[in-house]
């Protein structure tokens, strides 16, 4: 079961969280005591009335990177199954942008793996958001707090030898 690859999906259609969670539960099997689901959605901003969000990505590289992030989390915390679904294109306030699901035997592994996947996704996966509001269009700037969140996981990881076969 632990050899199951993460399920990674980039789609322009709405994310169906309930069926994604059911697929995750099936993939993880009866040994999974815990399941954590993270839902990121388009939120209303205070500055200007947000009308829509446009999300662009780098096809190919995104899938590859999300798979790598999912696989590393799976190995590092021995979780049973991982799902990462990310929406692209045009979205409205309240729409799901991303859903990350993690299943494991006990709760700590799933909670930690889910936090790590989201922190890495936010800072490493090639997605770009543009806000469309009454005041016009503008690309969202990267947040320094997201980069600090990512650093937590890098520091804890076992040191990698630059040597021959890594």
């Amino acid at each position: 079961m632990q050899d199951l690859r993460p399920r990674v999906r980039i789609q322009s259609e709405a994310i169906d969280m309930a069926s994604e969670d059911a697929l995750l539960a099936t993939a993880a099997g009866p040994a999974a005591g815990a399941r954590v689901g993270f839902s990121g959605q388009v939120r209303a901003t205070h500055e200007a009335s947000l009308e829509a969000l446009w999300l662009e990505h780098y096809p190919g590289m995104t899938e590859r990177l999300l798979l790598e992030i999912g696989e590393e989390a799976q190995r590092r915390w021995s979780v049973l199954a991982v799902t990462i679904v990310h929406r692209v294109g045009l979205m409205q306030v309240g729409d799901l942008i991303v859903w990350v699901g993690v299943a494991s035997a006990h709760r700590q592994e799933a909670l930690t793996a889910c936090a790590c996947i989201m922190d890495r996704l936010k800072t490493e996966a090639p997605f770009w958001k543009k806000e469309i509001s009454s005041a016009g269009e503008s690309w969202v700037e990267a947040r320094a707090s997201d980069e600090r969140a990512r650093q937590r996981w890098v520091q804890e990881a076992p040191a990698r030898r630059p040597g021959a076969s890594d």
Partner: protein
Amino acid sequence: MRLHVKYFARLREHLACAEEVLDAAQGWTVRDLLKHIAARGEPWASQLRDPVLLVAVNQSMSTLEANLHEGDEVAFFPPVTGG
């Protein structure tokens, strides 16, 4: 050697270019490619001088010192903001 170059998000908009195919000399690094493109004048010069710009070679994050090879896909883009 032929290189496939891609631009994303803010960069793509300012350059009005999503991708192009370039002929490059053998032995070029990413930095050589960047200089070559910036030499076209505006808007290329100032856009590609942006210090926060990221680069990927064949869909993996890369540094400016990486060597390029025939058929490589090189992408330039601003810091990511997904999720």
